[in-house]
């Protein structure tokens, strides 16, 4: 192999990306969530998703030749393998069966002449041999006969990589390319330290064998340890592409978060913020899959907008979900001096805490019901508002519901045909506004807002943030806002706590430079200092 080089140029999510990769090189790819890493890799892997959304601009060159991938099978043929973040393994199959899933070696059987190829028997011996071969190349100890479900996560990851490696053998007969480039998308995120070390070792072995690797990770130390060069992406651009000798954790962190275009910080009227503590959380643990909270303590002052930031999967979203009783939680939460019993949503709700969930469609809305229902339901159940009493029975007060809904439609400029429209028919931004209206209708003393701007357009974003700020300033409501976008938090919050690995890495004033937040977000505090 002479040398692989690739060039991309695209627009919007990815802007004029150019880089080269040599055989055996390990390239570390870092960037915040949504920086464009995944999209880039999807293009490289020829995923259907990219083609369905209009393809991409620019060219991919392998060995100096321009390549068009029409499907991921084409990419595999060119020797590109990809290990996704989520496992695609069959739990009750053995390691060997999983490595060769749907590529099982077959033994001829007479019945296949009659009923088609699928009645050939599976050649277990050959399967075993090839699985072992792949495992050997990976340089780890992995029993090919173990059932996947009994293995720890790390070994599942190895199985996935071994599968990519084993694909090489399939093509031996055909174009004899073999695997040349392996993309590993956050492989260490779920691994224990011990397992991660084994994986890094395996990566080096592969690289020595001439396989290039693109390694995506949020653990910067790992990247520095194992990679030959490091590429930092932000907002669809390559910010830096450097040799590893030129990088250290601190620098990478600042490249990652430092915005070229600063979002203007809005002017804040802080007169209503008192020193009184509204919410006190200590030792909170939440069992939310993908967003585990391990030990979180923080205090929120009455009337302030408190931000919770951090990378995805670090646990910031688990905090409100745990407090609101949607996921199993342990620890103590005090609101206005009173302890709130966890694991029952009606406790925080009746104390005057409201929550705008990050999962709009799943948790936030009744998609098949009218806007009126969506806005009024929470308040009706918790505060018993919008009810008419006839005798001992409490009926819905449809008139009051309609009025309040229309009020919020005006106030938040929700685009809809009427207050009777189904929530499903609104756009994402307007759905988000309905979620806010629902929370406002509860007249909360404290409001959790989780990822309020995720997946909505710029105009709606500004409106949502403005509405939150206004609500806070006019009603003195304490707001805890959770967002993955640091700049958004910095634009409206008073103080921001950064969550890393299920813990608070630090709490800073919102006016501090973004580099400091970046370091906290990566949890490299100790190493960095």
């Amino acid at each position: 192999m002479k040398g692989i080089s690739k060039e991309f140029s695209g627009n919007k999510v990815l802007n004029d990306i150019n880089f080269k990769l040599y055989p055996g090189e390990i390239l570390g790819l870092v960037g915040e969530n949504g920086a464009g890493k995944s999209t880039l890799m999807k293009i490289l892997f020829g995923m259907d998703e990219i083609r369905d959304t209009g393809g991409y601009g620019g060219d991919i060159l392998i060995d100096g030749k321009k390549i068009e991938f029409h499907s991921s099978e084409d990419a595999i043929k060119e020797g590109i393998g990809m290990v996704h973040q989520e496992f695609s393994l069959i739990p009750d199959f053995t390691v060997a069966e999983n490595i060769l899933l749907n590529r099982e070696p077959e033994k001829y059987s007479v019945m296949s002449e009659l009923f088609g190829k699928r009645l050939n028997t599976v050649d277990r011996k050959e399967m075993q041999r090839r699985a072992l071969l792949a495992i050997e190349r990976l340089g780890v100890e992995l029993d090919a006969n173990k059932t996947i479900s009994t293995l720890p996560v790390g070994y599942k990851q190895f199985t996935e990589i071994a599968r990519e490696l084993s694909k090489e053998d399939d093509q031996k007969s055909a174009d004899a390319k073999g695997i040349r480039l392996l993309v590993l998308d956050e492989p260490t995120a779920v691994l224990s330290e011990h397992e991660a070390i084994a994986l890094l070792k395996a990566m080096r072995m592969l690289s020595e064998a001439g396989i290039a690797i693109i390694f995506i990770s949020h653990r910067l130390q790992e990247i520095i340890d194992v990679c030959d060069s490091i590429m930092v992406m932000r907002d669809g651009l390559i910010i830096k592409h450097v040799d590893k000798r030129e990088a250290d954790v601190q620098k990478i962190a600042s490249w990652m978060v430092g915005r070229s275009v600063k979002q203007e910080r809005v002017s804040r009227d802080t007169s209503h913020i008192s020193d009184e503590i509204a919410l006190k959380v200590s030792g909170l643990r939440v069992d939310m899959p993908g967003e585990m909270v391990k030990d979180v303590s923080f205090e929120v002052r009455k009337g302030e907008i408190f931000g919770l930031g951090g990378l995805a999967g670090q646990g910031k979203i688990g905090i409100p979900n745990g407090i609101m009783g949607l996921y199993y939680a342990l620890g103590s939460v005090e609101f206005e001096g009173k302890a709130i019993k966890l694991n029952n949503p009606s406790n925080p709700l009746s104390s005057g805490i409201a929550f705008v969930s990050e999962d709009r469609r799943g948790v936030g809305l009744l998609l098949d019901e009218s806007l009126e229902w969506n806005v009024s339901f929470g308040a009706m159940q918790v505060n018993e508002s919008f009810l008419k009493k006839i005798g001992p029975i409490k009926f819905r007060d449809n008139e009051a519901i309609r009025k309040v809904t229309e009020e919020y439609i005006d106030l938040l400029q929700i685009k809809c045909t009427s207050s009777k429209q189904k929530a499903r028919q609104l756009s994402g931004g307007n759905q988000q506004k309905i979620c806010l209206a629902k929370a406002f209708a509860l007249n909360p003393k404290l409001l959790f807002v989780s990822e309020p701007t995720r997946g909505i357009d710029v105009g709606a974003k500004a409106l949502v943030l403005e509405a939150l700020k206004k609500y806070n300033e006019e009603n003195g409501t304490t707001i805890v806002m959770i967002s993955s976008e640091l700049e958004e938090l910095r634009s409206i919050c008073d103080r921001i706590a950064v969550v890393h690995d299920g813990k608070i890495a630090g709490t800073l004033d919102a006016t501090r430079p973004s580099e400091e937040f970046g370091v906290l977000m990566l949890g490299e505090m100790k190493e960095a200092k």
Partner: protein
Amino acid sequence: MMDAATLKEKSMQAIKSFGLPRLIITLFLVLLFVIAPFANVNIASGISDMLTRFGMNAVLVLAMVPMVHSGCGLNFGLPLGIISGLLGATMTIEFGFTGFSSFLMAIVFATPFAIVLGAGYGALLNRVKGGEMMIATYVGFSSVAFMCIMWLLLPYDNPTMVWGYAGTGLRTTISVEGAYLGVLDNFLRIQIGHLAIPTGTILFFALLSLLIWLFLRTKTGTAMTAVGSNPIFATASGVSVDRMRTLSVVLSTWLGAVGIIVYEQSFGFIQLYMGPFNMALPAVSAVLLGGASVNKASIANVVIGTLLFQGILTMTPSVMNGLIQMDVSEVIRIIVSNGMILYALTRKQEVTR
């Protein structure tokens, strides 16, 4: 040209929202009425039959509504409610009530059974969320089989009900004559020539429907609907999903109990043993025929569905017999009712809820 295209589109959409099978069945029923005179079938008596059977079955179909509302799916476990009703019915006869009071007492006796059985059934369904329908079916079946044993063993001794020769064990069919036969049907009954309207039964159904309609407009009823629409949303709003579901199951079970008693007052007999065994499917398909889906059902669905379903049931045999001397009504009933359920189960939008 444009107009024609949009018209076509619009009508297609109208058909889609109405549901193709429902349209076919409605047209079929209309067709039956149109050709009825040619088959020497009296339309007025056909309509009377239809209304009578509507009154008989409507409450049983109504029993589907609460459970669908709370997201428990179609109530294939209706036999459980029916059993409560049968217990009430047999007890009122055992204690010798007569007339309208026997009807009321049957409901009163059935109520505690419906509540207890419904609560247990609801608790069970809460533990198997997502797999309710299959389990509901089999809960219904097992309870029917269990009651078969109980009907033999329970210490009833009213001579009108037990086997004459043994003195114990209830008969398979027990007449409600002298108890509550026709107490609703004959109340304010309207008779014009061949046309007879069982006003009382229809009024009673209307009363129950009104109660359910009102209930769905209370705070609790609203919460129940929200639980069915999006249980996570409901949880996040501080509603106890399990409690709402249990409540809906109790309601459905109770309506099933009342439904069978209404059925008997019109039909004339209490059918024990295997009687309740296959009563769930017609009720399920009737409500689906009326436009309900696995997770949405309204009272209008109940009324339309029951009318259509019973209309087909009453009109097909007479018209077909008059026309081609071939009674395929039973086969049509099986195909229509189960086809309707299949249609509902396989609709895409509901699978990707």
